């Protein structure tokens, strides 16, 4: 063997003895912690510089090629290259494996638990009644109605007389109106807004009036002395009960879905004639009265939910607002928001609505 070849062999042996402790890295790596791996990685990098860089022995050895006899030069050159390649491959294989290993360990170490809660302040909640009121207001505004509200403490005129409930009328004598010591009434229905709004706006008019009303009921599961109503009023030339039915049906469909059916039932209210109660097919059982083979709860198995009162505005009410009942006609309707909420959410005690218990409030969004 020529001296040159020997020299090359020596370079290889020197490399292999130094690389020996890295050799296992070329195969699969295991049982190594991150710190050791990183140390190895650094040392390997040093080794690489030493054995593959421009100033490495193998790089220097290339100069020997010139010294070899011309006829052997080709073979020797190849030999040097083979050795150099072996060295480079050994280091790079180990390097790649180690790098991947470190990356994997790091990824594993930084793996997060995506099921931990997102970081955000606790959200507050609008009151159930506000949520439902806004939903209903939106529907009516899109139907061309204006939202109105007015006083909560009223004179007897607005609470009764103008609504065709004259003195001596049973509804007026009833024990359920709150009075102030000055003789004013806490409005017992939002129908008072009908009068105020017609006085202010004149006709034609289309309004809905959500608001608080008061009745002297001792609180129990289904009664509170204060609750909320939404009153609707539409007065124009040529308004009929068909418009009443169509309007009620339309907003109930928008609230409870396209398949909702509405019916009117004859009833009695002093401020409307003809009068009707309006019911709609139960949103839960779809009007069958049966839900999951049990008697449906919201409609008590009847398939119908009785929601509120309605009718054609009584001519005396129109006259009280200076509207000629021979020229104009109109419909009005009203219903209780608490009752609606308790139906929709199967709430069995409406007193909860005014206790402001956060455990209750935070259930609604």
């Amino acid at each position, binding site marked *: 063997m020529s001296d040159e070849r020997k020299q090359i062999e020596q370079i290889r042996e020197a490399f292999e003895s130094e690389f020996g402790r890295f050799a296992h890295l070329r195969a699969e790596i295991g049982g190594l912690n991150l710190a050791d791996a990183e140390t190895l990685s650094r040392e390997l990098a040093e080794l690489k510089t030493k054995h593959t860089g421009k100033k490495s022995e193998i790089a220097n050895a290339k100069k020997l090629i010139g010294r070899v006899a011309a006829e052997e030069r080709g073979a020797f050159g190849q030999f040097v290259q083979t050795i150099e390649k072996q060295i480079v491959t050994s280091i790079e294989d180990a390097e790649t494996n180690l790098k991947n290993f470190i990356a994997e360990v790091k990824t594993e170490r930084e793996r997060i638990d995506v099921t931990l809660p997102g970081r955000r*302040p606790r959200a507050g909640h609008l009151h159930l009644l506000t949520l439902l009121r806004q939903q209903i207001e939106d529907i009516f505004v899109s139907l061309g109605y204006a939202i109105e509200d007015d006083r909560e*403490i009223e004179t007897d005129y607005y609470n009764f007389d103008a609504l065709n409930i004259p003195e001596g009328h049973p509804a007026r004598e009833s024990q359920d109106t709150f009075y102030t010591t*000055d003789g004013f009434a806490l409005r017992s229905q939002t129908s008072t807004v009908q009068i105020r709004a017609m006085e202010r706006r004149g006709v034609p008019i289309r309004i809905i009036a959500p608001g*608080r009303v008061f009745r002297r009921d001792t609180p129990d599961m289904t009664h509170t*002395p204060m609750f909320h109503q939404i009153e609707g009023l539409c007065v124009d030339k040529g308004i*009929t009960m068909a*418009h009443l039915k169509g309007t009620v049906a339309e907003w109930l469909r928008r609230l409870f879905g396209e398949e909702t059916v509405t*019916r009117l039932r004859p009833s*009695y209210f002093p401020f409307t004639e003809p009068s009707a109660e309006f019911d709609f097919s139960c949103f839960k059982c779809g009007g069958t009265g049966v839900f999951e083979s049990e008697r449906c709860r919201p409609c008590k198995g009847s398939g119908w939910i009785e929601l509120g009162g309605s009718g054609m505005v009584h001519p005396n009410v129109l006259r009280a607002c200076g509207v000629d009942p021979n020229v104009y*006609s109109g419909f009005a309707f009203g219903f209780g928001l608490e009752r609606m909420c308790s139906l929709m959410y199967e709430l069995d005690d409406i007193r909860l609505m005014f206790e402001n218990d956060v455990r209750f409030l935070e259930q609604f969004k």
Partner: protein
Amino acid sequence: MNISYRWLKDLVETDLSPQEMARKLTRAGLAVEGIHEFADDFVFDIDLTSNRPDCLSHLGVSREIAAIQNAKLKIKKASDEGQRTKDESQNLVAIQDEDLCHRFTARIIRNVKIGASPEWLVKRLEAVGERSINNVADITNYVMHELGQPMHSFDFNKLSGNRIVVRRARAGETITTLDEVERKLDETMLAICDAEKPVSVGGVMGGFDSGITEETTEVLLEVAYFKRESIRQTSRKLGLATEASYRFERGVDIENLIRASNRATELICELANGEAGEFVDVYATKFVPNKIESNDIEFAVKRLTGLEVEEAEILRILNALGITEKDSSKVENQKSKIFVSPSWRHDIAIEEDLVEEVARIYGYDKIAEELPPTSAAGEYQPNEMRKMNLRKTLADLGFDEAISYSFIDTRSDDRFTLVPNFVHENLDRKYVELRDSIIEGAVRMRPSLLSGLLDAVRTNLNHQRRDLKLFEIGKVFSASNKENDLPNERELLALVLTGNETFQNKALTVREFDFYDAKGALESAVDAVNAVSLEFVAKDVKHLRKGQSAEVLVGGKTIGTIGRLSDEISAAYKFRQPVYIAEIDLQALLTEKQPDVLYRPLPVYPSMQRDVSLLAKRGVSFADIKKSIENQGFELLKRVEFVDVYEGKGLADDERSITIRLEYRSDERTLIEEQIEEIHAQILRKTEENLGARQRF
């Protein structure tokens, strides 16, 4: 109201099954709430509206079925004919107060044997929920349920002078009624008396002493008509509501009295061995039926309901319901008519009433569904959107929306400093008080939202919810300072915080709330309604802790208060943690002119910032420092911002260090260090001069 199916079938020709009948009655406005089987019968539970007392009997419901089904009644029309014996004495009945008793009939029945009722009668009464007492009492009850006319039977021999005087009770008169309760009568009440004393509270309940017993042999049967309002008043005053008063105060059929009396007499003769004797009918105030003019009933029905019903069908329905055309109005080819309402319908007075009758029998279900032609665009209330934003902002900040009762008790009186310019402090009665309220806690209308929110805090603390943020928007009330004026109503916003800031779905809280959480929330809320900025001025407030309270101002006007709840009130509520509350006049805020937003050119040159820590007495506020600096009027100084505050270790007790950031910028050139050095030094010198606040390094 219980109605027996079999009983109805005795009165009207019909093949309807109980279920069909229930459905048809409900459709016509007599809501059948339930059908119960009773022996071989079915009983309808009918929920009647207050305008239909005529249906408080089987006859009344039969009339409805006849109209709905175009069927015939099996019972003859009421007439004054029948077994009628002259009142020999002419002295049996005298009505002294004809305004309260419009008609009074009395029938004497002799040789009566009081005993048990036959089985069929007992069953009929049980079907409608009545208990059998004795044959005569059962018969009067039976006739009431059949024909709707309440009646009363006296033991004729127990009537002093054997006569009846119908008059107002005299002051001090008393009577022991059938329920064995002694009752005081007054001059507004109608009494049925014998020659000496009241023997019955007319139309409400008979007297105990004159009632029939097993020994009774001679019966005086009273069948009368009383003024509705009078019965209602008496019943209320005595706190005594009976089946009779229920019907009388809603109105019975004055033309039905003789038929009812005769029916009861027949039955007493048949079942209690009686012999019909004298009969007296004193008809003092003659019934005048309502006459209703209609130019074109067909048109009226269409105009109000959209239903197209032929005139013949309209007339059939009305006639079936007893509403007749006045003979004189029956002119061929003439649309204009006068209708006459029957004596049993007190609720039919105008054309619209006729329209309802036609529509409900014809069927509300035949009414079409139409939307009214569109007219104007919809609109929210002027401030509705702003309030919606405000609510949403507070909810986003973690506040739950509370809604409390509008009424409160007197516990909170004078506890709170109320929003300004609302309650007239010089009035004797400055609050709106409720008259004889029976509801616990409902004594007056709230002048502040705070008591409601504090109650809510207590409720939640009691449920171990210690970290709370609540707000409420609602009206408060105060008495007007003008005589006979409606009370003042005003919409306020209030909020309350206590405990710690919490994160969604995280058990551990972040940090304890303080004044600045409340202030920040209020400022965010105001930003959300795009109102002008709030100012906060330290001020002692009755319900707030000294040194941690402020007035809230907008446009120079005070609109509310904010701060930490005082120890006294906290103790009263048993709060053991700091509570921060604010209340402002939302109405005043929303009526404040919204600031114009104008574009300002973006800065071209970079700014320079200097952070400075100033050591000052605690009494010197950030606002003082800011104002003092800004008032020096240097054009290059663009902004003074708060950075941090430090107090405690290393500082005197009465001192604190405030760090602020001053931002300098020129609109003409890039500033260099030297250009601001002098201004900055001057600003600090002046601030020290003005406020004693010196720079701390």
